[in-house]
């Protein structure tokens, strides 16, 4: 079976609270063992922390966890707030996949490489 890569626009998550955002991401990842999410925009460090904690709460013999990596600005700075206020989009992306599919995500400061396999 092939790998499904699902791209999610920042718009889809923008009105969600951090717990809703994390629940949505985890739900999407768990829906298919062959799905990798590529989300427009980077998760904040708080979102990432919540995502790891929620993932750990859901680990079982069929779902051992996730691989996740964000690229781009993670903290909400005055610059990013101003960009959002003016209707613009902050940069970055987040990649999330089940660890049964995504074996490793290698990160360079400006580059992500995914190693997949079953």
């Amino acid at each position: 079976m092939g790998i499904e890569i699902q791209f999610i626009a920042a718009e889809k998550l923008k009105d969600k609270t951090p717990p809703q955002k994390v629940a949505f991401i985890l739900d999407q990842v768990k829906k298919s063992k062959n799905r990798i999410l590529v989300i427009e925009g980077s998760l904040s460090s708080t979102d990432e922390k919540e995502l790891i904690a929620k993932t750990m709460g859901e680990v079982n013999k069929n779902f051992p966890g996730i691989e996740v990596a964000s690229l781009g600005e993670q903290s909400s700075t005055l610059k990013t707030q101003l960009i959002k206020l003016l209707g613009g989009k902050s940069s970055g992306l987040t990649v999330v996949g089940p660890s049964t599919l995504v074996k490793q995500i290698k990160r360079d400061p400006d580059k992500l490489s995914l190693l997949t396999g079953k």
Partner: protein
Amino acid sequence: MPFRQFLSWLQNLFGSRQSFSLGLYGNVNAGKSTLANRISKDWSGEEMSTVSEVPHETREVIKKERLAVRVDGKILTMNLLDMPGIATKVDYRDFIKRGMKLPDAQKRAKEATKGIIEAIKWLEHVDAAMLVMDACEDPYTQVNITILGNLEARKIPVIIVANKIDKKNAKADRIRAAFPQHPLVEISALKGDNMDQLYRAIAQYAKG
């Protein structure tokens, strides 16, 4: 957090606080418990954690309270917290590959996930942190980045510890280049190398 800032202001007003909590964070098998044991043994004469090659040996927060550390004639009193290693996945099959029986492996995995959640919760409560990294491994892990991001957001002082420098393939410079915004100390917790430098860094950066 306003209450935390208020508390900090009060502490500054009436002199430095009596003791502070110092959390040891990092990826699984970075050497946190070896370091906790080294610090604890140096200042209390006894170890505090169990060390193992099998991942997730530390599955709950282990505390050593009121550890008195002498640095340049001054005494720092700290509560040392050895945190479970943080990971984004815990697979019981990995423990079976290491020779564990199925029920033990499943139990260990369950305890490990709870430990990770506990360590994450503690990110909001430590006064200072040491982020321990294996100098032989790639420092750009999501776990390291997430831990640092959360500590930075709360303005909690962080010392990066490049551990295992006694190993031939250790590259502490790679860690320094990855996270130049924080003080870094190169050590070998196993051999006890550069521990004096680490205690000075704790006195300089972690003691608020």
